[in-house]
């Protein structure tokens, strides 16, 4: 009976995340001897626990630094992202729980001229926290903040394709792009690009913290906490349930866990995987796990020896014990990668064949093809790339010996890793937090001219398809193009995609929520807007 109960509970959990339908759940429940009515009510309860207003919601986040600032162009991570964007502000668009792009401050958007021209309609009559109405000028000033010669914004490169922005009346913004991009609405959903009020001098007011979101800023102490109160005039119906919200920066994972256990916070991100079973067994706490778009990778510079030989690359891909690494270093929390950077949940994702699994015999075979008996190379790693990069590399080194591959693991300093190691050393550990579309991901990291092309891989066919797919409006043709691109990257690229990491988070049982988004941690960084207390 216990086992069945356990399975039912698991299924309920799946149902909440939208992976199990009501029918599937009911069938399972009936099979285990639960009546139809009971099964139905269980499902309904789990899926739609009636949202309730009120409560003080406290979140412990494993990021946050004393150098954090209100400038959205410089939001470095989950702390500023979740608190100062997801709680406080809105972008033009947002990614919903199913990974689709929908309007946010923009009510609607449409493309013309082969997706080179985009028209965004600003939602009518919505206001900033100070009561001022949001207009097209505010939108333009907000995005202009990231552009221009002196911009220090991390979003500068995202918006580099914007040739011009114009207001057409108070509620319409027209973007002209340098080339067609069917995914432009996704780009402007980024957490670096909240809509902020324009100042009289034409620049944007990012300092005051006046935004449009479900909560108003009460106090922000960089590296310590950010607290918010409810915005009574919020325009999104059925969002923003709490009276107050507080984000605490708790970088030490043990301290974060203890704070959740002792009830000082109700939500924590980045759980400690080693002690997760203990946490799960606590009756007051729910552990949630979402496989997002983010992935942990090792990238080689394909222009350098010995990685310039595709057979060597393939041999290396077959020498990595992905399953073992996932099981030991990440304790199973993730999905093994297959040298395709597109997460399975992203639209147009495919799973290229043959799968790159651990196969020392095959690796040897490819080495032979490359005319080698054995292979030795340096691998530069640091936990700055991702937590577990060093342990994974050491495990890889141990197992790759069987394929005649000798990996010399070099632990690089965390400080300055992205500066001195990434894009500089021939084979390095890296990560991407992923992108919600195929185009965005490929353009960011695998296009021949991408600033972040960390494999220095320039495949003519791939790049030809990339450009063609952007303005292709026929879904089927576009899907075929994207499938081919993913296959080429899998076979030929310098990317070893070890795994897609899971967001493992935990929260108090008395929190309710809908389907959880996968695009960022903390329910797409909008946990404060989307969740509520059930009791």
């Amino acid at each position, binding site marked *: 009976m216990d086992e069945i109960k356990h399975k039912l509970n698991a299924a309920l959990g799946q149902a909440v995340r939208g992976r199990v339908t009501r029918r599937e759940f009911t069938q399972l429940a009936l099979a285990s001897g639960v009546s139809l009515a009971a099964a139905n009510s269980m499902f309904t309860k789990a899926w739609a626990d009636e949202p309730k207003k009120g409560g003080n919601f406290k979140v412990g986040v494993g990021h946050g630094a004393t150098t954090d600032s209100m400038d959205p162009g410089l939001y470095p991570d989950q702390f500023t992202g979740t608190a100062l964007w997801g709680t406080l502000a809105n972008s033009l668009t947002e990614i919903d729980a199913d990974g689709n792009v929908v309007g946010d401050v923009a009510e609607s958007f449409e493309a013309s001229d082969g997706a080179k021209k985009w028209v965004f309609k600003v939602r009518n009559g919505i206001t900033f926290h100070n009561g001022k109405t949001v207009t097209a000028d505010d939108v333009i000033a907000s995005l202009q903040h990231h552009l221009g010669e002196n911009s220090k914004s991390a979003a500068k490169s995202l918006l580099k394709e914007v040739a011009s922005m114009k207001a057409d009346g108070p509620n319409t913004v027209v973007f002209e792009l340098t080339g067609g991009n069917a995914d432009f609405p996704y780009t402007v959903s980024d957490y670096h690009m909240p809509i902020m009020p324009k100042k009289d001098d034409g620049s944007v007011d990012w300092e005051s913290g006046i935004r449009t979101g479900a909560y108003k800023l009460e106090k922000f102490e960089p590296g310590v906490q950010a607290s918010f109160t409810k915005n009574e005039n919020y325009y999104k119906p059925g969002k923003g349930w709490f009276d107050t919200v507080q984000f605490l920066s708790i970088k030490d994972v043990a301290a974060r866990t*203890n704070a959740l256990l002792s009830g000082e916070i109700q939500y924590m991100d980045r759980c400690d995987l080693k002690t997760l079973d203990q946490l799960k067994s606590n009756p007051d706490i729910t552990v949630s796990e979402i496989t997002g778009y983010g992935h942990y990778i090792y990238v080689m510079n394909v222009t350098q020896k010995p990685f310039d030989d595709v057979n060597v690359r393939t041999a290396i891909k077959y020498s990595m014990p992905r399953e073992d690494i996932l099981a030991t270093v990440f304790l199973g929390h993730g999905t093994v990668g297959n040298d395709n950077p597109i997460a399975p949940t992203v639209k147009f994702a495919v799973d290229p064949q043959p799968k790159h699994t651990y196969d020392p015999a095959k690796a040897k075979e490819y080495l032979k093809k490359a005319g080698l008996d054995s292979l030795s190379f340096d691998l530069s790693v640091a936990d700055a790339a991702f937590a577990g990069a060093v342990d994974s590399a050491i495990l890889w080194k*141990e197992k790759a010996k069987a394929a005649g591959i000798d990996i010399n693991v070099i632990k690089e300093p965390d400080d300055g890793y992205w500066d001195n190691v990434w894009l500089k050393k021939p084979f390095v550990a890296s990560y991407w937090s992923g992108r919600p579309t195929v185009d965005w991901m490929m353009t960011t990291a695998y296009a021949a001219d991408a600033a972040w092309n960390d494999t220095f891989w320039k495949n003519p066919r791939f790049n030809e398809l990339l450009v063609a797919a952007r303005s292709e409006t026929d879904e089927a043709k576009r899907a075929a193009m994207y499938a081919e691109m993913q296959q080429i990257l899998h076979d030929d690229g310098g990317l070893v995609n070890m795994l897609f990491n899971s967001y493992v988070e935990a929260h108090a049982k008395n929190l309710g929520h809908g389907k959880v988004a996968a695009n960022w941690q903390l329910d797409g960084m909008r946990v404060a807007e989307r969740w509520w207390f059930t009791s």
Partner: protein
Amino acid sequence: MTAQAPDLRSVRARRTLWENTRRTLASAPFSAWFGMIVILIYVIAAIFAPWLAPYGEAEVVGKAYQPAGGEFFLGTDQIGRDLFSRLIYGARNTIGIAFVTTLLSFAIGGTLGVLTALKRGWLDQAISRVVDAFLAIPVLIFALMLLAVAGKSIINLVLILALLDSTRVFRLARATALNVVVMDYVEAAKLRGEKMGWIIFKEVLPNILPVLITEFGLRFCFVFLTIAALSFLGVGIQPPTADWGSMVAESKTLITFPVRTFPWIPAPFYPAMAIALLTVAINFVVDWFLHKTSGLRDEK
């Protein structure tokens, strides 16, 4: 003159070194004995680690967090390495690193301290001011910065900690030596025209040695703790090298949240206890040594 020397000795035979040691040891209290035995065990473990440890230092031999007993004496760690083996290799690395670091810091700090005490003048002033500045910067944060500058490797760690520690040793050596350099026998040596090296090593050093050796014991222990703290802050000894301080830091979440496979003693306790036991042992021996050499008369 030289012919008479053997005669003198035959009158009253001097105790041999061995006999001296034996007599001294016989009078050692229990705590000193305990300390010496513990240190001996650690030294043996450190020297013979590859023969004593059932598995390799970095060898992945099982699943993560396998329970103690059976195949793995103390269970396995977070990526399935044998904890007992790592503990033994840890003795070698931890003690080795701490020993080299402390030795180096005494070589630098001690020599400079005695030298400046003898020479005084502008060199003394200059070195003392720089040392004061070093002392006034928190060790941990300064070590963190210097490690970021130099890059994280064991050699850099040893050099940086030795440098920072040597400033502390310098102060002590200089202060103690100042009391000695005014003695008549040092003056006499200077008048004889002895070389500086001779005066330092033959006249001054033997007389400040007890103080330095005591300090050596304490500094030696502090090095473990500094490395543990650095590992906690994300620098320190680099994996897969087994080091007790890093081993405690790596498994810190298990202190408040023991994983089921360690039902009685959570994993981080072993390396922590290894550090604590060694520190206590060294201090017991140092206390006894101090007591012997300082001629403290503690009646009753």
